[in-house]
């Protein structure tokens, strides 16, 4: 019996060791994210759409101003077949090429605009929530900007500066970041005066470090939520503007303009209208659901 046990020395270090399960924030985020089957499906859909939209137009060289098959009547209004997967339109262009070129424009515009809006919004919003003097001035400006319909502001800006890819992005971002900044401001105000921040300030942490180290990490899930909302909003606004004939020039392929052009064929050649509409919808939905699930996953409360 005594042989089964051995005496050990007292290990001072082992008693100091605190046994906590290993926790990595980002690992937990991804684990929670991949629990959702819908999110995985949407992630796959988003990846497929994103890759086709980025790669396919490089090979098709689709140009909305150029219709090489315009004289070949046999190529007009072909329903989807093995040759032209999405069929052909009223001037004999392949709808497949047109749709992906338009999707590429939509995705690029929404990604760039969202990036600008979020960066500006978070930077200004964090400072806005932190500084009381700045808050007074910004609130006055915000009260004017926020009460004017967004679509009206964008339309007016485009009318003034003219149409085009970068001009559209400019119009979408000139007041677009305001809403995000206001949201971030409110969030920052809520956690600004919590005790750990009070202590931090007493210890002499500079404002910039307070914002980047103490406050913003707290807002990760909020920011991801904003991101996933902003992308559909921009995609929707872009398509509406192109639909109205404002925003992009005729040289830039666009799903919105395609939808507006093909509206007249809605009864005779329904595929011509519904394919662009459903692609537009699936781009937006997949990005939104992926973003929302990721936002939920990035909230540490869901990691239990």
């Amino acid at each position, binding site marked *: 019996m005594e042989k089964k046990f051995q005496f050990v020395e007292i290990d001072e270090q082992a008693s100091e060791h605190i046994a906590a399960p290993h926790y990595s924030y980002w690992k937990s985020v991804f684990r929670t994210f991949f629990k959702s089957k819908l999110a995985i499906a949407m992630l796959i859909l988003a990846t497929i759409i994103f890759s086709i939209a980025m790669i396919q137009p490089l090979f098709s060289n689709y140009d909305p101003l150029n219709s090489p098959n315009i004289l070949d009547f046999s190529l007009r209004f072909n329903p989807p077949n093995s040759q032209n997967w999405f069929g052909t339109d009223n001037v004999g262009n392949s709808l497949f090429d047109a749709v992906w070129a338009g999707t590429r424009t939509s995705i690029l515009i929404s990604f760039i605009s969202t990036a600008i809006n979020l960066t500006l919004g978070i930077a200004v919003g964090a400072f806005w929530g932190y500084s009381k003097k700045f808050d007074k001035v910004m609130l006055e400006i915000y009260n*004017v900007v926020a*009460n004017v*319909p967004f679509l009206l502001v964008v*339309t007016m800006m485009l009318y003034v*500066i003219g149409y085009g890819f970068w001009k559209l992005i400019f119009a979408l971002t000139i007041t677009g970041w305001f809403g995000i900044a206001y949201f971030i401001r409110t969030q920052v105000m809520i956690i600004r005066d919590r005790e750990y921040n009070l202590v931090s300030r007493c210890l002499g942490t500079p404002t910039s470090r307070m914002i980047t180290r103490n406050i913003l990490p707290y807002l990760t899930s909020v920011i991801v939520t904003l991101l996933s909302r902003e992308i559909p909003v921009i995609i*929707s606004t872009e398509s509406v503007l192109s639909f109205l004939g404002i925003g992009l020039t005729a040289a830039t392929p666009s799903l919105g303009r395609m*939808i507006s052009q093909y509206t007249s064929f809605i009864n005779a050649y329904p595929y011509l209208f519904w394919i662009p*509409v459903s692609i537009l919808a699936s781009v937006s939905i997949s990005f939104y659901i992926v973003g929302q699930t990721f936002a939920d996953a990035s909230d540490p409360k869901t990691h239990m």
Partner: protein
Amino acid sequence: MKKYIFVRFLRSLFSIFMVTTIAYLLIFSLVPRYRIFQSDQLWAKLTSKPDTLKAYEFNKYEELGYLKYVEQQEICRNEFGNTSEDYFDCMDIDSSKFAALKTELESDGWVFGVYPTTNTAYASKEISILERVTSFYLNMFVFDHPNKVKDEAKPDLERKIYIGKDWSGRPALLCSGCEHKYLVYVDGNFPFIHQNWITLYFGISYPSFGGMPVLEVMTQTQGEAVQKEITFPTGVTQSSSVSEYSCTYKYTLDRLDTMKYNDNYADCATIRKDPSMMGISFRMGIFSLIFSYLISIPMGIYMSSRKGKLIDKIGMGYIVFVIAVPTLAYIYLFRYLGSSFLGLPDTFPMQGAGSFASWILPVISLSLPSIAGLLMWVRRYMVDQTTAEYVRFARSKGLSQSEIFYKHILRNAIIPIAHGLPGSIIGAIGGAIITERIYAIPGMGKMLPDSINVFNNNVVIALTFIFTALSILSVLLGDILITYLDPRISLNEKGGRR
């Protein structure tokens, strides 16, 4: 409280003023001026006649307030009269008399040019953008008064405001010497008492609806003229479609006018079948506001009482759908569903404004986003309230579930409902731009992209002003409304603002 509302009102006015001014400055300094001619067909026809074209362009610019413009003839006539020897001298472009006038005007900022074919000169002077903005606001409110009409042919025109009767015998406040004959009048249309005393003026509309005042474009009735048997003031009975209340002073009367009217107020608008652009848009907005509240409040309450059940999931799915799916896609989807399964007209003009069916789909389309927003608010609020302490207390007192719901929670829930009102109005304005285009509705929302596409600057400015004013005032109204509904909310408390 009153002081606060007054200050808020002034601030709202200031906001409207700022937004409109910025829009005005940007549009008139950055949009290339010559673009206004792009869709003018008369202009396109004149391209073969360079002189007439030049004169036409400058006349239009002057009419739209860009510049002042005179021809050589006018310069000389002003200086020397119409018939003198000097006048004919001056009409020679190389004469010393004209050269003297030219240098004088040039030092005043006028720029001279020469017509290529007739070889006569013209001069133009830019009006600065600040001057233009000022005159835009100064001319915006037009007050009618008895000394308004200056008619040289009628020096003894009576100048008075008096109470009289209209053609059908209803009392009205009339005026002689004003621009309008009827200053205040009563009729059967909402809001029943109307006035012509103060009118808004936003300049003239060009190139679309050429020459008409912008506001008239938006407020005049549209469609076919409505013919009615009318007895005119002279006693003549005729089938006509004139709207008596719109009559304004006409300087030169023709034979038909003297046959029908006793006085010079013979310039009358025509009554048409369909409401005006403004009327259609407002109706659409109000219907959709009512519709979205009618749907979302009961639905939100029902969802919160069945939290986590199927109906709640369907509602949440709808909210996600509206946020995630582009506006264009879901409006078309609903239009398709409505027209192919319910047989509703898929464009507005198919059955016109007179038919109830043509309003259904547009109003639903316009309501879809605001229903989602309101649903989210109502549901979240109701869910929060059901765990509040006063509700638990009410339950422990033994009140029934429905009593708690309708007598306790709902009264508190009115507040966020009222608070969502301005948001819905702002949303409806943005939505109208899309919906009216898709359903081809002749309203103000469709007017905005239409005017932008033809570079109709004055209409764009007017629409910006109207939409901004509506949005900003609706926010003000929403805030005032909640303070009346909930006495606990005080707006003028320091730092207590939203």
